[in-house]
């Protein structure tokens, strides 16, 4: 029997670790993603919004069949007179909320998918059910490939994708910029089309950015001097202007690097060209086969020695 060899074991472990680490360092060299400003998106101006929720009802009216949306009943409303979602849910793609700091300081805010330039949900979806259209930049969901693993929910920094927890045949629900409904028919999203006060603008990202910058310049006292979504997580196509700090409106403070770039860097370098796994397999095969042979030879030797002994005994 071979003497225990901790060294050999550590060697194997070390090789694995080294493979993991080596990849990590040269990963920083890989190219960062490019922001495409010709893609489409929306600009929501919280200072213009009057909180009428016409966008919410338009969204549900237009997308309810295609997007599997439905009305949500409030506890105070036994007759189901109103659609009263508390939050974005498996029945609601967009939502207006009021954030009140005092009687004088308050703001509405609209939630819906941010349509990131480098979306985490697309990066993590194991079966490509989440996709980002290279031309329009729309982040879309295909329920016919989705397996319902909800990794997109874990990944999204904005907590946007919602799951239908109460259904036997559930799906993920999120804004797709009316890709297959209002956009096809009227060339504009339902919410932007309906908004009576022009709080939601629809258009190319570059035009929306220019418009936002113009507003910031024209009325610097009104706005917080920041376009939310311009740089956050590598840029989003849904942009925000507001008079209150964005974090107070429930929009998280985020870094400029897209989380997906960090995770993909590591994942890609470990599995670059599938070299590391193949190398690991072949190395281990060599070691294992050598060990087996050694052992068989020893066993054979033992057997012959035993036979000799037996014969001598006779």
């Amino acid at each position, binding site marked *: *029997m*071979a003497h*225990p*060899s*901790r060294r*050999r*074991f550590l060697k*194997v*472990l070390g090789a694995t*670790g080294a493979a*993991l680490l080596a990849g990590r360092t040269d990963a920083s060299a890989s190219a960062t993603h490019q922001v495409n400003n010709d893609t489409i998106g929306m600009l929501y101006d919280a200072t213009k919004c009057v909180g009428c929720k016409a966008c919410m009802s338009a969204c549900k009216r237009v997308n309810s069949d295609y997007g599997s949306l439905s009305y949500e009943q409030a506890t105070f409303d036994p007759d189901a007179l109103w659609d009263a979602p508390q*939050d974005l*849910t*498996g029945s609601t793609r967009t939502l207006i909320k009021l954030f009140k700091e005092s009687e004088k300081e308050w703001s509405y805010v609209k939630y819906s998918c941010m349509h990131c330039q480098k979306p*985490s949900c697309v990066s*993590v*979806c*194991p*079966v*490509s*059910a989440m996709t980002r259209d290279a031309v329009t930049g729309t982040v879309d969901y295909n*329920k016919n*490939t*989705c*397996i*319902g693993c*909800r*990794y997109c*929910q*874990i*990944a999204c*920094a904005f*907590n946007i*994708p*919602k*799951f*239908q*927890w*109460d*259904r*036997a045949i*559930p799906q993920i629900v999120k804004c797709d910029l009316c890709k297959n409904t209002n956009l096809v028919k009227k060339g504009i999203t339902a919410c932007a089309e309906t908004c009576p006060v022009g709080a939601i603008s629809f258009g190319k990202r570059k035009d929306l950015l220019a418009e936002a910058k113009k507003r910031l310049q024209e009325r610097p006292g009104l706005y917080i001097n920041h376009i939310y979504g311009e740089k956050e997580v590598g840029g989003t196509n849904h942009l925000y202007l507001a008079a209150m700090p964005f974090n107070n409106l429930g929009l*998280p403070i*985020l870094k400029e690097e897209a*989380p997906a770039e*960090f*995770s993909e860097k*590591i*994942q890609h370098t*470990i*599995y670059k060209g599938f070299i590391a*796994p193949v190398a*690991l*397999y072949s190395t*281990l095969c060599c070691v*294992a*086969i050598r*060990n087996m042979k*050694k*052992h068989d030879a020893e066993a054979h030797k033992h057997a012959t020695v035993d036979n000799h002994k037996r014969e001598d005994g006779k």
Partner: protein
Amino acid sequence: MSHDEYQIHRAKILTPSFIFLLTLSLIGFVLIGVRFVKGIGAVSNMSDGYPWGIWITYDVATGTAIACGGYAMAILIYIRNHMHYHPMIRSAILTSMFGYGLAGFSVMVDVGRPWNAYNFFIPSKWQANSAMFEVALCVMAYTTVLLLEFLPAVLTTLEKTEWRTLQLLLDMLYARMGMKRPERIGERLDRVKDLAAWLKPRLDKVLIFVIVLGITLPTMHQSSLGSLLLIASTKLHPLWHTGFLPLLFLINCMFIGYSIAILESVISCYAFKRPYETKELSGMAQIIPWLTVIWLSVVVGDLAWRGQLAAALSFDFYSGFFLLEFCLVAGGSLLMFSGKKRASIRWLFISAALIVLGGALYRFNVYLIGFNPGKGWHYFPALAELLITVGIVAFEILGYQVLVKILPVLPKLHTRQQLDAEVKV
């Protein structure tokens, strides 16, 4: 390797523990039925903030680490060349097979649209950026590998079987129906036996390549289980969110694997009233503290490098769980460093249990406890959700209990004593 190293554990199958585990499994499976009829929300407390609950955290992320006994034993035997541990591998593989098989089953319960899972086999849908894709394929492949690794136990039994139970059953059935039993059935059964006898030596020849695959695949997907949370940089607490997650998960599954192999051996020897395998276990326990020392150094070094040491010692909610995880692993390893303690089956059991608990808590910390999606979200598993997990675990133990009594899985006792003697010489 010879197949004479293993033996069937001759004992009654219908024991009180069998009934108890069966009851738990049945409750679990009924609740799984409810989940498929009324939706996941009906049985679980998962929410859009906590889309992964106890099923993913325990059954998949922790359960597969606990099922790494087979992986750890295979490294020990075939790579580190300790062939005298070989008699212990079959029971380790059986537990791994159940662990992984049921982790896969749990995923099918957990995912919302399991009927779309075939997309994993359609190249145009492949998504190499996704750690989940890698985990899914590797886990499926590894479960197949485990089945192949376990196949010799089934083939050996088939080869020698006389189909007594089946013959009795058939006789009874035909008698009931008032028919004469056709001769053909006997011929067909013989053909199965011949096939098993034909397949076994051929499988033995290529088995080593399968076994090595069984070492490569867990190395890949166990590290990817860590990669899964890399994306959640805004949600996972900085004590745990690090680029070293894949490496930490990999080492973590190795020391859990060896520790669980010790626990399983002690428990099954106790339960089946067999002599303890103290010598093998204390030999195996030598490796564990080295692994945990590497793991703990990476954890501490990484925290220091990212400037999170103060957060680790702040004694708040997160720091508390971090320190608990850390102390469990460190405490268990300290015990195992002592050769005297390692020679005692009781201390082996205690230290291995501490390490498994600490290692498992690390995975809970990463997947649930350290995960914070933002204000207003809370998660604690619902009773039904827990019972489903309990049911699945009960089914796992039940399967093990039954299979060791009908297939040659446990190490053969007299062979063992011979081997012990040989090692001493």
